[in-house]
């Protein structure tokens, strides 16, 4: 949080960092008023479990967007890695071994994205759209024809992201919290975080002052790939399925969550922790819609409208309150 010269936190920046929490509370309040079930323990557990993949992706995605780049392949990576993980555990490899191999694949895809964008200088949108298609395509090729899902995974696959670990929440949830804590520290305390903000603020100036922007952004792409693979493993475990299309739309969710968190997508500033609140807003919305019985085909419009609302709030907060 920024502080003013005399060390006090200015209340304008306070509003800026807290309005997203207010939005979350508002949504929770509305759904609770409509249905008492919304604040019940089973529903809260459910929401937190469902939010795990989006939290895992949202954290590193924020850093990437702070650097002024974007990765549209995250949903594709989640799909492909869920398929790979499912195939590996079905082939008899231990859950841990299969997970580690899948994470390695995530690292490689992230490395490829970074290579395309930073070394070959292909615009991020196009490069990552291409890798998204490659990932979903490979995922579909590896899945059985017909239903296109890998089912009948061995017993115990659901332990990671579905079964209770502590306080009814699964291990994957605590892992995602740990991941966010690490990323917040990376953003605030490490040179990678400083360089990320510098590149997003002004890439040329950052390079002139000695920041290796290629290496920095490349690293961010690798981190995003790794975390997407982690999300893929969590997704496969949660569903007990390998599904090449399970990640479809996750890129848009990540973008919306990052925007809700007030990250400036021209780069330079933003916050990983506020993105998590953004993720929770989205998950509460879709869970709440289920609780009050809205049919699933409303999801797309709601998502789009939330994105527009996030943009408008962002503009209002930045232009009207801060200036």
């Amino acid at each position: 949080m920024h502080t003013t010269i005399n060390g006090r936190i200015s209340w304008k920046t306070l509003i800026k960092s807290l309005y997203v929490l207010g939005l979350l509370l508002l949504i929770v309040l509305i759904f609770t008023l409509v249905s008492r079930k919304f604040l019940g323990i089973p529903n809260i557990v459910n929401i937190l479990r469902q939010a795990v993949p989006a939290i895992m992706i949202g954290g590193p995605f924020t850093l990437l967007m702070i650097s002024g780049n974007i990765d549209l392949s995250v949903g594709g990576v989640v799909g492909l890695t869920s398929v790979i993980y499912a195939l590996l555990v079905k082939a008899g490899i231990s859950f841990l071994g299969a997970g580690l191999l899948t994470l390695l694949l995530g690292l490689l895809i992230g490395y490829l994205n970074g290579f395309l964008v930073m070394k070959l200088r292909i615009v991020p949108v196009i490069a990552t759209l291409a890798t998204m298609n490659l990932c979903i395509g490979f995922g579909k090729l590896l899945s059985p024809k017909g239903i296109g899902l890998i089912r009948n995974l061995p017993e115990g696959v659901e332990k990671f992201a579905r079964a209770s670990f502590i306080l009814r929440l699964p291990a994957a949830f605590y892992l995602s919290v740990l991941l966010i804590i690490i990323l917040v520290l990376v953003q605030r305390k490490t040179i990678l975080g400083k360089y990320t903000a510098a590149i997003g603020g002004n890439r040329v100036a950052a390079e002139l002052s000695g920041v290796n922007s290629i290496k920095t952004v490349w690293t961010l792409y690798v981190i995003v790939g790794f975390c997407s693979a982690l999300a893929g493993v969590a997704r496969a475990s949660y569903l007990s399925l390998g599904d090449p299309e399970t990640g479809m739309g996750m890129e848009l969710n990540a973008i919306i969550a990052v925007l809700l968190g007030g990250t400036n997508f021209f780069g330079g500033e933003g916050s990983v922790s506020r993105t998590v609140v953004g993720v929770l807003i989205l998950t509460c919305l879709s869970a709440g819609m289920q609780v009050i019985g809205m049919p699933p085909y409303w999801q797309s419009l709601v998502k789009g409208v939330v994105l527009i609302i996030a943009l408008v709030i962002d503009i209002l907060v930045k232009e009207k309150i801060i200036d």
Partner: protein
Amino acid sequence: MECPENRDLNLKPAVTVSGRISNLTFINLSMLAVLLVVFAAASLLVPRFFNINNISNLIAQQAELIIIGIGVTFLLVSGYIDMSVGGIISMAAVLSAYFCQSASAASFSLGSGLGMSYPLAISLTLLCCMAIGAINAFFVVRMRIASVIVTLGSMAISRGIAMILAKGAQRNTGMPTEFRFLGQFTLIGTINLTVLLMLVLVIAALIVEKKTVFGRRTYLIGANPVAAKLSGIRVERQVSSLYILSALLAGITGVLMASKFNSGNCSLGTGNEFDALVITVLGGTSVVGGFGSVSGTVVGAFILGILSTSVNMLGFPPALQMLVRGSVTIIAILAQRLALDKRNV
């Protein structure tokens, strides 16, 4: 970053004083050569490919993609991306059915609509599509928000509207008989209204991009937005009209598709935004703006079409199509850049 000379050369005439053809003509001719090679290879290697029915099918299939490709190309040339075209297609398809379905007094169901006459239904549908284009323009141009983000959002909104009105399925009963006329009218073989419209629009687009002030401004904006603004071009107005145009073209495509299938299906147009980008990039349009041509997009559409048809006819699984699209995009960008770099040493 892209080297500036590449973009500037595009503003010069097709044949420069030294007698060399321009970079744009060079890339267009190269991609045409690639198309011929791909065509020859497919004819030789794929059984039953070289066959008049198959080829006229191919043209009809790609016509829809080319129509939306025109708008996407103009936007990409001016440095912006439009990811909403696929969503707009589905919205137009469902709306055009919903508006003209008979307004029976029965409870709200997929069979009853607003009971307008078909021409009115089409006009209203296209207006709604242009409204989505205007939303894109407002946030991209006025609020200066990255075009990918805005248009991904409007994609969700327009597909969302289609999904709600079609309840996640389709509206295919209770439309007037003329609903199917536009899409099912054919001239010879599969040469239908969509193909004719595609031809007219491509010719119009080529004239606009080469001969009109509007077209040349588009290139200048993409090549150097600051210089364009300083030289008195109203960049905001220009880009706004391009977004509305792109949405209109997607709307027309959606109306024609709904008419062809005699159904307003909310899953129409899925993935078309990426296909439109792929053919545009295959045609040599630069992804950073300022360079490209609709003629290239047409060539790109047929390269992609031949590759997809061949993958199908050789009996490969359809998932391979996605791999083809993904890899072809990256290869095309790199090959074209390499060719231009070599040429401009």
